[in-house]
C-alpha cells in the first residue's frame, strides 16, 4: 500500500504543476493574438456613430469594464482572484452574457453527445478488434478493411455522408438542431423522442469513426499479445481459453485506455465537426466563435475546462493503470 501512496502523491504533484502551467498559458496565449477585442464590441455599438468623442468614450468605457486597458500582470491577478471565486467574468463576444452562463447553456450538449459516443465507439471498437485478433479468418478479413476505411474517413466526411444519406436522401432523420425545429424544450415524451432522433446522426458520425480506429489498434495489440510467451506457456499448462483471453485483453487494452483518456479530455474541441455540420448545440462552436471574436474570458474558460478534463482523465488513467498493471506502479514508485 505504501508503494501506491508514493505513486499517487507523485502523480498528484505533477498534476498540480501541469495545471498551474496550463492555467497561465490559458490566460496568456489568447491575449497574445493580434487584434483588439474591445474594438469588435465597439464596432457593434458604434455603427453609424459619426462623432469621434462618442466612439472613443464607448471604447474606453468597455476597455475599463473588461480591464483590457490594464497591464497584463494586473489582468492576470484580477482573473486569478475572480476564477478562485468561480467567476469567469463577462463574455466579450456575447456581452452582457457571463461566461458561466454561456458555458452552462452549451456544455451539457457537448458532454451528452460526445461522452456516450466516445465510450460506445471505444467499447465496440476494442471488442471487435480483440475478436478479430482472436478469431482470425473471415471475421478478421471482413472487419479489417471496413475498419481501415472508416478510420481513414475524416470526421467531417463521415458526418456529411450520414447527413446526405439518412437526412437528405432517405429523409429518415432530421438534418439539423438538437431537437425538433417546431418544439420548445420540455419533458414531454414528444420532445424527448425528438431529442433522441436528432441525437442519432451526430452520435453515429462520431461513433463510426471511433470504432474503426479503436478496432485496428486493439487488433494489433491483441495479435502481439496472443503470440507472447506467456500465452503459449499458459496453453501448454492447459489453462482455459477464457482465462487466457482475459489476460490478453487486459494487457492489450492498456495503450487503448490512454487513447480513451485523451479522447474524453479533448471531447470539447472534438465536437466541433458534428456541431457545425448538424447545427447541434454545444461548446465546440462556442469555442470557435470565441476564438474568432477574441473573447479572452470565454477562450480561457473553455480551454481551462479542456485542460482540467485532460488532466483529470489522465490522472484517473494513471491511477487506474496502477491497479490494472502493477508493473507500472512498481516502476514509477522506485
Amino acid at each position, binding site marked *: 500500500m505504501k508503494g501506491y501512496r508514493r505513486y499517487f502523491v507523485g502523480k498528484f504533484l505533477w498534476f498540480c504543476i501541469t495545471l498551474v502551467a496550463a492555467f497561465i498559458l490559458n490566460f496568456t496565449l489568447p491575449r497574445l493574438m493580434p487584434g483588439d477585442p474591445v474594438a469588435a464590441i465597439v464596432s457593434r455599438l458604434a455603427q453609424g456613430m459619426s462623432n469621434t468623442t462618442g466612439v472613443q468614450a464607448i471604447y474606453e468605457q468597455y476597455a475599463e469594464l473588461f480591464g483590457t486597458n490594464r497591464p497584463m500582470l494586473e489582468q492576470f491577478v484580477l482573473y486569478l482572484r475572480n476564477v478562485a471565486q468561480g467567476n469567469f467574468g463577462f463574455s466579450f463576444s456575447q456581452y452582457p452574457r457571463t461566461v458561466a452562463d454561456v458555458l452552462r447553456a452549451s456544455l451539457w450538449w457537448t458532454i*451528452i453527445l460526445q461522452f456516450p459516443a466516445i465510450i460506445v465507439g471505444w467499447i465496440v471498437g476494442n471488442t471487435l478488434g480483440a475478436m478479430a485478433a482472436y478469431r482470425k479468418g473471415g471475421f478478421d478479413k471482413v472487419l479489417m478493411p471496413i475498419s481501415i476505411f472508416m478510420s481513414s474517413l475524416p470526421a467531417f466526411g463521415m458526418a456529411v455522408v450520414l447527413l446526405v444519406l439518412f437526412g437528405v436522401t432517405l429523409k429518415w432523420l*432530421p438534418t439539423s438542431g438538437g431537437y425538433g425545429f*417546431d418544439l420548445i424544450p420540455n419533458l414531454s415524451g414528444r420532445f424527448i423522442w425528438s431529442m433522441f432522433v436528432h441525437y442519432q446522426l451526430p452520435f453515429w458520425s462520431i461513433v463510426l469513426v471511433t470504432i474503426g480506429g479503436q478496432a485496428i489498434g486493439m487488433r494489433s495489440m491483441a495479435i502481439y499479445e496472443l503470440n507472447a510467451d506467456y500465452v503459449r506457456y499458459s496453453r501448454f499448462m492447459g489453462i482455459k481459453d477464457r482465462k487466457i483471453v482475459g489476460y490478453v485483453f487486459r494487457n492489450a487494452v492498456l495503450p487503448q485506455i490512454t487513447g480513451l483518456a485523451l479522447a474524453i479530455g479533448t471531447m470539447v474541441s472534438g465536437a466541433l465537426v458534428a456541431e457545425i455540420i448538424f447545427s447541434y448545440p454545444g461548446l465546440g462552436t462556442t469555442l470557435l466563435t470565441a476564438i474568432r471574436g477574441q473573447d479572452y474570458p470565454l477562450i480561457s474558460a473553455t480551454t481551462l475546462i479542456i485542460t482540467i478534463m485532460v488532466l483529470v482523465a489522465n490522472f484517473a488513467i494513471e491511477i487506474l493503470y496502477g491497479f490494472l498493471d502493477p508493473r507500472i506502479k512498481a516502476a514509477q514508485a522506485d
Partner: protein
Amino acid sequence: MKNKNRISFIILGLLLVLSLVALSACGTSTPPVEENPAEAAPTVEVAAPTEEVAPTEAAPAEEVAPTEEAAPAEEPAPTEEVAPTEEAAPAEEPAMEEADPNALPRNETLYFNGQQWGSVVGWNPYSNSNNNAMAIAQQDNARVLMFESPYVYNMLDGKTYPLLADGPFEWNADRTEITFKLNPAAHWSDGTPVTAEDVAYTWATHVKYNTPTGASNVDYIEDIVAVDDQTVTVKAKLNDAGAAVNPLIVEAYLSANYVIQKAWTQTLEERVGEDATQLLADPAEDVVFSGPYHKYFADDSKVVMVRDDNYWGQDASMWGKLPVPTYLAHTIFKDNAAGTTALQAGEVDVSQQFNSNVQDLWEKDGLPISTYLPDPPYQIGASLPTAFYNLESPGLDQVAVRKAIAIAVDYPTIIANAMTNQSATFDQVPRSLMNPTAGEQALFDHEAVADLQWVGNDIEGAKALLDEAGIVDNDGDGWREYNGENLHYIATCPNGWSDWQAAIEVVAAAGKEIGIDITTNYPEWSVYQTIVTKSDAPLPEGYDIFMMWSDGAGPTQPWSRIRHLLSSEFIGMASNWNGNWGKYSNPDVDALIQAIPNETDPDALKEMYTELVQMYLTDVPSFTLMYRPQSFHTVNESVWTNFPFDGDGTNPPVPPLDLMDGWGVAGLYNLELVNP
C-alpha cells in the same frame, strides 16, 4: 465458448448504449428549462422528472415512429397539425397553455433563417449588443416586430409611413423643428397608451446614458419634447447660420429608432441605479413593448416570438387586423449550408441568408421556393460592397493606377461567382454612387456621367491609361514601375467571407493582366476590422486594396452612403466605423456632402448628386464590386404563401425585407396558408 463471449460482449455493449442514451435524454432537457422557468412548459414541469423517464427507454422499441416524427417539415402533416390550430386559434394568452405549449403548430408558425446567429443575449431596446436579430434592430429600416418607431421607411418608393404616428410629420417653415402626432389607438403591451412623453423620455434617456442611439444623434437633435399627450416636437440642433445642422438625420431618427415606455425605463433606471454600463447590459426580460410580437422562448438553438393578440395595430386606423402567423421562429443554424438544407426541407419559410445558386432550388430541385424577382438578379440590390484603395500606398496616390485597376476588373465573373448572379450587373445598372432602386437612380443625370462609367474587363484601356501616365515596365520583368519601384499591392478582405474573397481574387487577377502585381491576403475578421477602422494612423502593409461595405437603403440615402464613402471628416478617428477607410480627401466633395442635407430643391439636388458621381468616377478613391440586397429574401411556399414579390400589386409596395423591416412588416398581414 467463443460465442458465449461474443454474445456477452454484445449484450453488455447494447446495455451501455441504451443506458447512456436514456441518461443523455434526461440530462439535456434540464438546462433549457432551468434557464427559462417562466416560458418553458410551466404546466408540465412539476410532475416531470419521475414520470418522464419511461418514454426514453421505451422509445427505441417503437421502431415505426422515427420516420414519421423526424420529418414534420416534409408535409404539413394534416392530422397532427389541425388539432393544435383549432385549440390555439380562438384562445388568447392564458389559453395557450392548454394547447400543446411545447410544439409550435406548423400552420401558425413562420420560420426564418439568416437573421439570428448565436444565442440571444437580451431584449433591451436601449442596447446594441443584444444579439437579438428578431426583436431589435434600430436601423434605416427599423425592425418593428416587438418595438416600434413613429414611422417606417419603404425602400421601394423611398417614402416613410406612419406606424406609432398619426399622419405625416411636418417641418416648421425654418426647417428647424419637426412636429408629429401619435396615433391615439397606440398602446403598450401593458395596456397603457403610447404618449408623447414616452417619445421624449426615450430621447432623454438615450442622451443621459450616452447610448449608441444617443451618441450618434446628439450632434443633430437638440431635444425632443412632448407638446401634449399626442404631439411631439423634435428640435434640430442648429448651426451658426441658424439652420438645422442636418435635417436628413433628424427626419431619419423618426423611422430608425424605437419609442420605449417611460414607466418601464424608470423601472430599469431604478434597477441599475442609474448606471450607464449596467443600463445597457440589462437583459430587460421584463421590457414593455408596443409591437405585435414578443418573446416566447429563446435558447442556444432557437428563438421564438409569439403574437400579442392585444396588439394595438389591429385598430382600424392602422392595420385593421392582427398579423397572420401566431409564432415567428428562428432556428439558430451554425452556417449557411445548414440553413439552406432546412430551407429545402421546408423547415424555413423566409430565408435571409445567401443561398448559393438560389435558382437551382426551383429550376433543378423543383421546390416551391422563390425570390423577390423571378430572374437574375433575383433580389433588389441596396448596398454597394466596395474595394477601397489605401491612398497612401506608393502608386495608389495616382489616379491612373487606381482607375486602371478598376476598369480591368472582370465584374461579370465577380457577380457570377461571388454572388451567383444575385446582383445586378454593371450593364444593367451602370456604376455611380447610387444603389439600383428606382428612387436613387432618379437622383442623378445618367447622361452626364455616362462616359466616366465602366463595365470592366477593359484590359487594353487600362494599359493605355498607364502608358499614358508614364507608368510602364522599364526593366522588362513584366511589372510596371512607378518612381523606379515595381507596382506591387496586397488585396485583402476578412478570412472566411467567401463571397468577398472570391471578389478580391478577381481584382488580383486583373492586376496581373495589366502589369501590376497584386497578391491576396486574408486576415481574421477580428484583426482586419481593428486595422481598417483605425483611421488615426496610416494603414499598415497588406492593406493596399481592401473590401468594406457601404450603406444600404434608407431615408438618409444616398446622401449618407456618399458621405460614408467620400467624406474626409472621418480621417483621424481612432475607431472609424463610418467609412472612407482609404482616407480620400477632396474639399469640393466635402462641401457638397455638407450642403445636400439642407437642400430641398429637387433640381439642385440632382445637380449636386451628379457632380458627386462625376468626381467619384473621376478620382476613383474606391470602386463598387457588386450590388448586394438589403436583405436576402427567399421564400418557401410549402406552408405559407402570398409573400411579397415584384409586381404583387400591393400599394404601397411591400419591400423584400423578410416581413420584418420598415414597411416590409406589412407583408405579415397578407400571408395566407397553402392548406388552410
